């Protein structure tokens, strides 16, 4: 198995682990970390899927750089939102949808 393919399969494993944790874990921080793990797995896969004859192809590398910045931005906001949720509800978990309860004055 070529080195690049190893990275690719590692990426696939990371995606699988991250997906499992995202669905199963309750704490918001763990869900956010799980998303980051998936993201890193996707980036690894992207670079590994890129054409690999001779010198590397710069386009997937640029795409991954863009993806990293986007992932950092999203993670920063997600963490801030998680803190806000914890401050508002007392626990850092997703509050149940709790739909059919008539609430306060309209918004």
């Amino acid at each position, binding site marked *: 198995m070529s080195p690049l393919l190893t990275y690719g399969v590692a990426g696939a494993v990371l*995606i699988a682990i991250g*997906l499992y944790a*995202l669905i199963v874990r309750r704490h*918001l921080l763990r*869900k*956010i970390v799980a*998303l980051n793990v*998936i*993201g890193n797995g*996707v980036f690894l*896969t*992207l670079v590994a*899927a*890129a*054409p690999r004859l001779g010198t590397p192809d710069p*386009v*997937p590398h640029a*795409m991954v750089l*863009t*993806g990293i910045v*986007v992932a950092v*931005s*999203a993670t920063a*906001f*997600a963490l801030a*939102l*998680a803190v*806000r*949720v914890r401050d*508002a*509800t007392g626990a850092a978990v*997703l*509050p149940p*949808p*709790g*739909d*059919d*309860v*008539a*609430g*306060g*004055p*309209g*918004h």
Partner: protein
Amino acid sequence: MPQLAELPLLPWAVALPLGGAALVFVVRERAQAIGLAVGVASAAVGLLLALQVATGGVQHHAVGGWGAPLGIDLAADGLSALMVAMTSVVGLWVSLYSSAYFGAGDGGHQRAYFWPLWLLLWTALNALFLAADSFNAYVTLELLGLSAVALVALAATPAALGGAMRYLLVGLLGSLLYLLGVGLLYGAAGTVDFRLLATAPLAGPAAAVALGVITAGLVLKTALFPFHFWLPPAHASAPAPVSAVLSALVVKASFYLLLRFWFWVLPEAATPVVTNLLGLLGALAVLWGGLRALTAERLKLLVAYSTVAQLGYLFLVFPLALGSVEGFTAWGGVALLLLAHATAKAGMFLSAGAILKASAHDGVSGIDGTAQALPVTVFAFALAGVSLVGLPPTGGFAGKWILLNAALATGQWWWAAVLLAGSLLAAAYTVRVLTHAFTRLPGEPPACVVPARLEWSAVALAVTALVLGFAAGEILELLRVGAPVSGPVLMEQLR
């Protein structure tokens, strides 16, 4: 005097709201005035762009002068033009509504932050609809998702924050799956441009897995049953103009990308199993969403479940148009439904917001007597409901009529049954709301404290849904530009 055909409207459709967003962020004191002005200008650019495509055919713009596959292209065919026009119309009235909706209550915080976030969302929408590059579409998808979540969280209630968090997590998973697919396609084809991908020889497991992951990610973001669970909490607890934009525009963006991949890039992957599965999930969405709307306790939750139901109709495009020789019928019907839903649902959410501003609590029963106090707003709600049900002569009727024709003409009568059942449910929950609104309260009607701008924006959108029915012919003409399927508007009945 430059000709319409020469105007670089594609880049300006993205640059104008983007520049406006940066401006209203820095010049916070004048955020509302500048934001409204930029909104009006962006709407004008969008509508001009639609006109440009209608008169001049498919438009291209090679950013940086390089052209695909090295550079990034912007492109506008009939479908993109209609989506940008839809964004412009809804965006215009939502901007007007928002200029009066956010008061100075919390120190002007909501008002100061709404405008940069809203304009960034508008930028993302235009950029997405005009993107001819699938990786570029990923960046716009992230811009769209983050701004949408932030706008939901602006309401600052525990329900809104929880809904926003769930929306964010689901949205990020969807985008990552999409990115994975785009990466695999690049590995297989050496390009990420939609036009080049369409002609590239894509076969084998990589392409199939790529399409599968892309579809999974986009279906998550479009809230197709059973992945719809995040939509009602988010759309119901957001501020009213945000709910309107989310239901009308944001969910349509991921659906639009789904169309790009299935109808242009890999239509040969559309086996009957896959198309019928998507159609089945759409049908379940129609029924489940309609039933939940019927029993919802809160007004905005009712409207949000209605969105889940209406999005289900859109997925009928897969069994009815994909792989069919004369697919334009269903293609046109779904496009009309998409546009009609956008204007009607936006109008419905805006009127719900106005109604809730004037009522005691946000339950459906709390709107008793509203018809006396806010007749214009309730009229807007009713008219929007009429389009959602699909009564003539609204745009909703035109779309459903055409889809019924497609379903019956190709012998797939079960989809017709779904369309009718959905209309019945929509009628039921609309009547439910109107019954409460028209309940006469004893004594004098309460003084109306809702600004006129709120009511009339809602009416404008509901009337647009009506006008769409009359303009259906022209809309379908525009849709033919660059369409992936051909055929008549209405099919002959098969013997």
